[in-house]
Each structure stands twice: as structure tokens, then as C-alpha cells.
């Protein structure tokens, strides 16, 4: 964690420093920096190797989106078909459904899930008792380590209309039991809420770190100026973590075309597939089970391109708003 962070900072600072003025000088200058920071570069080397082997080399496989991939022929041997898979993709009605579902579910989580760790971090930050705070933080982190399969089982049992606790509670107040998991509305709510439950606590870590980096003198100054607790949060804490929020927002938008497979797979059922069939589950059932590798690779490629466009544009917007973007 620590190391990779410093590595990122190093590279970005080098980039900014080494903005060239003239071409001949540029090389000299670059070499000078490399010499000066040689240990840093040595440290960076394995990371570069890692990215080349595990992130860039597999990109080669994307060419099967333009081929008719057969297991026996391999990636190189399969015949080229150009954009046929993309044409099929855009011509199929399922594509628009899963595209819409993926976007919608991610939009909901951007609106409802993304802000929760920020609020939680602000609340935790205001806690006085150090011991109590630690215990609370640990409890909040635990769900992150529980697998979705387990959470899915618990959630379905909890929401069962006949045996679930939630419906007992509803009936206690004289309300009709609801079969939550087959209602499109409640299913979406459960999906989003389970995200919050699992990840919100763990998401506070980065914000807590950012908050810890705010100079106490700012708070003192604010206090002297007579700022209330709320005012301090508004004018000191939030601006202090603004750049962290911005960066996480960009990363979140990068994932907008991607719904984590396990989460949705354990909660899906045929009653809600109109809203719950997303790109990842579609790729799983068509590609992995039914061996339509090329078709689903085309879908995956399309998904990545949209995500790239979104990240680039959000990065621009964030920069235009005066924050430091990703690059």
C-alpha cells in the first residue's frame, strides 16, 4: 500500500519535473534524472514487468473479438471476421437491456453507495473515545472480508417472505409481507444496500487517512474564529479530503460499465433478470458456459472503450473544477 503510493507519487513528480524545453536537452535532462533516482527506478522495474506481463500482454487476446475463435485453432489460427461480432452485438436486443442495466445499477451505486464512506469517515473522525473508535472501525471493516456467496445466502434468508426477519418485523407492525427478491424495485434496493453494508466501512480507510493528514492548526484557527463543529467539517475537513474524493470518483466512474460478477450472480433470479442481467453475467453465461468467446470478447472490448472514454472525460471535468486529476 505505502510503497505503491510512493511509487505513484514519484512517477508523477518526475513527469512534472521533466517537462522538456528543447529536444536535445530533453534526453540529457532525462538521463540526469534517471541517474539521480536510479534506486527508485530499480524499485519501479518489477512493477513495470508486472504490468507488462499481466496487464499488457493479455491485451493481445482482445483480437479474438475480430476473429471466430475456436479452441482448437487458438488465438492466431482462428479466422478473421472483422466487425461481425460487433454488428451482431448491436443488432441484438439483449445487448441494450444489459447495457442499460449495467449503467443503471452503477449509476445508483454512484449516487447511493459512493457518498456513504465519506459520511462514515466524517462521523468516525468526530468520535472522542479512541478505543471505542477503533472497535467501531474494526466492526465496520469485517463485512468487507465476507464473501458475496455468504452474504447472498444471509440476505435471501433475511428477506424471505415466510421466514425472514424483515418480514416478521413488517408483520409485527401489521404490514403485508413482501417478497423482496422478486420485486424489481426491492431487488435493486437490496442490491445497493448490500453493497453499502459490505464495502462502506472498508471504504472509509482512504478518507480517514486523508483526514489524518489535515493540519490541526486549521481546526484551531477555525475554532478561534468561532466555527461550530459543523462549520469545521464543512470548511476544513471536507476541503481537506476533496482531492481524495475526486480521485476515487474518477476511479468509480471507470468502473461504471462493470458490475462485480459474484455480487449480482448470487442475488439474481429469473423474476428480476429484466433489471439484473448485466454485462458480467451475460459474458459468463454466453462466453464461459456456452463457448461464444469471440462474441463476448467483443462485448468486453466495447465495455472497456466506454469506460475509458468516461474516465478521460471525468478526469477532464475534475481538472476543470480545479482538482488534481489522475494524470
Amino acid at each position, binding site marked *: 500500500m505505502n*510503497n505503491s503510493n510512493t511509487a505513484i507519487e514519484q512517477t508523477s513528480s518526475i513527469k512534472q519535473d521533466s517537462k522538456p524545453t528543447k529536444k536535445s536537452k530533453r534526453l540529457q535532462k532525462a538521463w540526469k534524472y534517471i541517474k539521480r533516482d536510479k534506486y527508485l527506478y530499480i524499485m519501479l522495474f518489477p512493477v513495470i*514487468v508486472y504490468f507488462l506481463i499481466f496487464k499488457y500482454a493479455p491485451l493481445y487476446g482482445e483480437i479474438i473479438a475480430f476473429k471466430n475463435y475456436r479452441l482448437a485453432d487458438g488465438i492466431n489460427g482462428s479466422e478473421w471476421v472483422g466487425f461481425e461480432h460487433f454488428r451482431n452485438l448491436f443488432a441484438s436486443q439483449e445487448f441494450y437491456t444489459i447495457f442499460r442495466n449495467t449503467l443503471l445499477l452503477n449509476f445508483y451505486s454512484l449516487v447511493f453507495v459512493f457518498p456513504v464512506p465519506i459520511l462514515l469517515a466524517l462521523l468516525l473522525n468526530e468520535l472522542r473515545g479512541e478505543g471505542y473508535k477503533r472497535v467501531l472501525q474494526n466492526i465496520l471493516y469485517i463485512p468487507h472480508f465476507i464473501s458475496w456467496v455468504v452474504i447472498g445466502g444471509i440476505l435471501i434468508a433475511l428477506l424471505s417472505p415466510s421466514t425472514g426477519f424483515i418480514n416478521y418485523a413488517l408483520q409485527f407492525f401489521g404490514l403485508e409481507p413482501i417478497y423482496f427478491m422478486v420485486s424489481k424495485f426491492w431487488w435493486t434496493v437490496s442490491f445497493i444496500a448490500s453493497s453499502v453494508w459490505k464495502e462502506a466501512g472498508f471504504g472509509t480507510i482512504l478518507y480517514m487517512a486523508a483526514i489524518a493528514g489535515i493540519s490541526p492548526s486549521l481546526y484551531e484557527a477555525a475554532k478561534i474564529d468561532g466555527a461550530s463543529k459543523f462549520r469545521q467539517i464543512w470548511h476544513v475537513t471536507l476541503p481537506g479530503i476533496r482531492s481524495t474524493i475526486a480521485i476515487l470518483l474518477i476511479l468509480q466512474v471507470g468502473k461504471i460499465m462493470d458490475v462485480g460478477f459474484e455480487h449480482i450472480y448470487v442475488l439474481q*433470479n429469473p423474476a428480476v*433478470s429484466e433489471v439484473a442481467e448485466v454485462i458480467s453475467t451475460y459474458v459468463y453465461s454466453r462466453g464461459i*458456459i456456452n*463457448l461464444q468467446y469471440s462474441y463476448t470478447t467483443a462485448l468486453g472490448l466495447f465495455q472497456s472503450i466506454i469506460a475509458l472514454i468516461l474516465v478521460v472525460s471525468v478526469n477532464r471535468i475534475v481538472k476543470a473544477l480545479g482538482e488534481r486529476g489522475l494524470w
Partner: protein
Amino acid sequence: MNKSSKKWLLVLLTIVMVMVPVLTACGDSSSEGEADQPSKDEPQATAEGSEKDPYDDLPKELSISTLDRGRVSSDEGTYEENRWVDYIREESGIDVSIVPVPRKQSYEKLNVLVAAGQAPDLIWEYSRDYMGNLVTQGAIQPIGEYIEKYSTSYKEYLEENPDLLPLMTFEGEIYAATSRRANKANHGMFIRQDWLDELGLDIPKTMDELLAVAEAFKEAKPDSIPIVGKQTFVTIEAMYGMRQDRWFLEDDKMTYGATMDRYAEVLDVSKTLYENGLIDTEFLTDTNNQRAIQFWTTGKAGMITYNWGSAGAHNIMKDLYTNDPDAVVVPLEPVETPYGNNGLYQETDAFIYVAFNKDMKNPKAAIEYLDWMIDGGWVQLVNGEEGIHSELVDGVYKELDAEKFKKEVYYAPEYGVVRDQTFTPEEIVVKAADDEISQKVASMITDSWYAQTKYPWRRDFPYQPSFAEFSEIEPTIDTIVEEVRTKILLQSDKDGAWGLEEIRNEWERIGGLEADKAAQEWYNANKDSF
């Protein structure tokens, strides 16, 4: 933490960071290299094999997949290493290594192994469709020549059972070895006789009577669910002489199950069951059948649809009898529908399909393995060791100790991929352990075999067609059918007629008409061989 120790930590972390990717990269590339090398030489070796057999010099090594059903207890070992694997190696003289694939994700896991070039030499599955996929993908090779050239016992077996050949043949060539399924019954229905007696009802004989009995159960026992089991819909379809996800010959025309006229009626019956609470209204979220089993074993279900004689069926019956000693379960024969008496789902003649990986190193060893297996190697795998796990009574192997057998033999039968096995329902009772409940369950299961096989399941041709026009749209139509059915169940304004129309429209939209045409061509081309 002071400054110097921080520095150390940094250095240490750096070292770790440097080492990890390097190590993994090394490990990866070297193992891939090893796997690739011999397989690339292999085709040449086959070509020049006429004079001296190229496989004689190769070590007798063989890898084979198996289905991991999580049945090997830790003191027995693993699916890869246990007493039965040792037994196979010792007796067959072939160094076998087992590659387990999870039962529920067998296709995915095998596909991934094949795509990565790491699939075992022998790949097996119960599904002929899946084998068809592997053939289309070019992942497996024809084996007719190997059988001809190297096999003794298995060749003989095939000569005695020529009707298996069409099942083994894909695109005109033999691609998979199989043996005769000793017992074709698969799905079954069971009903609580004591509930019937309590309410003074007779065993239902027709669909209407079945619904009436379910209604009566519901009324008399409001806490219970009249019919449970995730096979309920398939069972109803079977009794109507169809199955939503299979092809049938309707009026001499190849028709996909979900688009048949009668499917509207099936959907209507399903709706009646759901709306009146005669089946579990929460079946949609009971994906692993656990709720159904819980209701049944705690005596809160009147009927269950379940695999007829599986180990699971024995277990749920035993659990029920243990929980409720007064319970009386009897098999329920398939009831009559407007389409007559049709049996519940039954299997084809072929048992396990064993295919040869195209990159296999030593097909001769594979054939020897099959020869050894069909020659009697399977017997101990299915029945355990004589004198320790079972004894021979009237030509049937009888379990000596139910617990011991369950622990030490229960996981082994599927290692026997080809078996020259026969079956009579009576042997279930002989085989079962001597305790009272095991015997009671066994005799009931025996009765149920007769009930379930009284009528044949509607099978218009010996095996389902497999062709590209259909396999491309199959997952789509399956999803659509399931969605439509769910809508009909949950929304009161929708009925079977609406559903059938919806399904037919979708079928047309996604290219089902071409699939119909291709299916017809397949039928015309093959009907003489049926």
C-alpha cells in the same frame, strides 16, 4: 516505530515486491513450456506410426477429469489422491492423475482448462450436448481408429452393444466412448400416504386429481407446502409429454419444446400451482433446493419431486423417517394429462461420455485404461472392496456397513467411467444396509422405480440434435422462457396463451426459425439411423 526500523521495513518490502512478480513470472513460463513441448510433437508421431507403434516408448501416464461433488472426507484424502486412485494405478498399471472439476460448474471449468491448454487427457461429462460443443470447438479428437487398433475388451463391448455407436458419433466420426446406462430412470415423485389417509383421499391419477389433493393438503395443513422440489416444473412438462428445453417431433415437424402448443397448458397449470400456494412461493430464491429439502425432511411437505433413486433421495427419506417415525412415503406414478400418460424424465442409453483431448500424449494408454475399466475395474469402484465394504449376495453386492460405505465408497463410482453394469430394482433392497430405516427406504425406492418407469418419457429420437444455429441462441431462449414463466406466475393478468405467444415471438426474433429449419434437416438426414 523509529526512523531506522522504518527504513528497514521499506527495504524489506522492496525486496518482496521485486521477488514476487519475478518468481511468479518464472514459474508460469517454465510450466507452460513443459506442457506445450510434447503436445506439439504429437501429431507427427501419429502420422508415422504405422511400422513401430509410437506410443510404446511413452510412459503410461494419463490424466482424467472427474466431477468433484465434495464427497471425499479429509481422512480419506482428496479426489486426486485416495485409496481408489491408488487401486486404479496398481491394478491398471497406468499412472493416472485425476483432475477434479466442480460438479455444478463442470462446463465452465472444463472450458477454461481446454482454452488454457491444460485440459486432462480424458475429458468426461454426462451431457452429449457438451461433447458436441467440444467437437465443434475442435478440442477433442476422433477415437474410432484408436479403438480399432488398440482396444480389446472395449471393442468387444461395442460389438455387443452396437446401438451405442450412433450416440458416440459426431459429424460422422466416433468422438466419445460410452457404456450402457444400467438404469435410465431419473426424475421421480413421492407423496405422503399418511396425509392422504388422514384426509381420506386416494392417490391422484390425473392432473386434476393431483391439483385437488394438493388443495386438500393446503387446507388441512396451512403451515406446509403441498408440492416441493425444484424439478416440479420439469416434472409437469414431462407428464404433458414435453420438455421446454428439448426438441420434439410434433406432427412430423421438428419443434423446440418451449414453442409447442401444449406449453401454454403447462404454463397455466404452473400458474395455478403458484397462485394457490400449492408449490413453494419462494422457489425463485431457493436455487439450491435447500428450502424444499428442509420442508420435506421436517414433514412439512406433502409431495416432492426429486431424482428418483439418487443417494440424495435415500438421504432425504431417511431424514424424514428419523424426524417423523410415523411418516409414510409412497412413490407417486406420473399422472394422466390431456396428452395421455407420459413418464417423467429418463436418460438415454449412454452413460458417461469419455472424450480424448486433441493434445493427448498417449492414446494407447487411454484405450488400455478404458479396456481395464470395462473389463471389471469398475466393479470395486462401484461396490467397494469385497469383504470390507460389501459382500456378494445373490449376485448383488450388499453394503456391510452403511456409514463406512458412505464414507469410503460413496465418492468412488464415478472413477468407473465405463461400466458393463446391469440393474434390477430389487438389488436396491439387497444392497442397502440392514438397519430398519435403510431397508424401509430401499424398498420404497424400489417401488418407485416401477412407478417412474411405468410410462416412458417422451423421446422422439435417441439423442438431441446439436448444431450451430441452435447452440448460439440456446442460452437466450432459455433465459426468455424462464422470464416469461416467472412473469406468468407473478402477474395475475398473464396466462399461458400470452406466454406461448411471447415465447414464439422471441423465438422468431432471435433466429429460431433458422434453428427449426436446421433441426428439420438434421432429422431428415439422420432419421434412418434411429
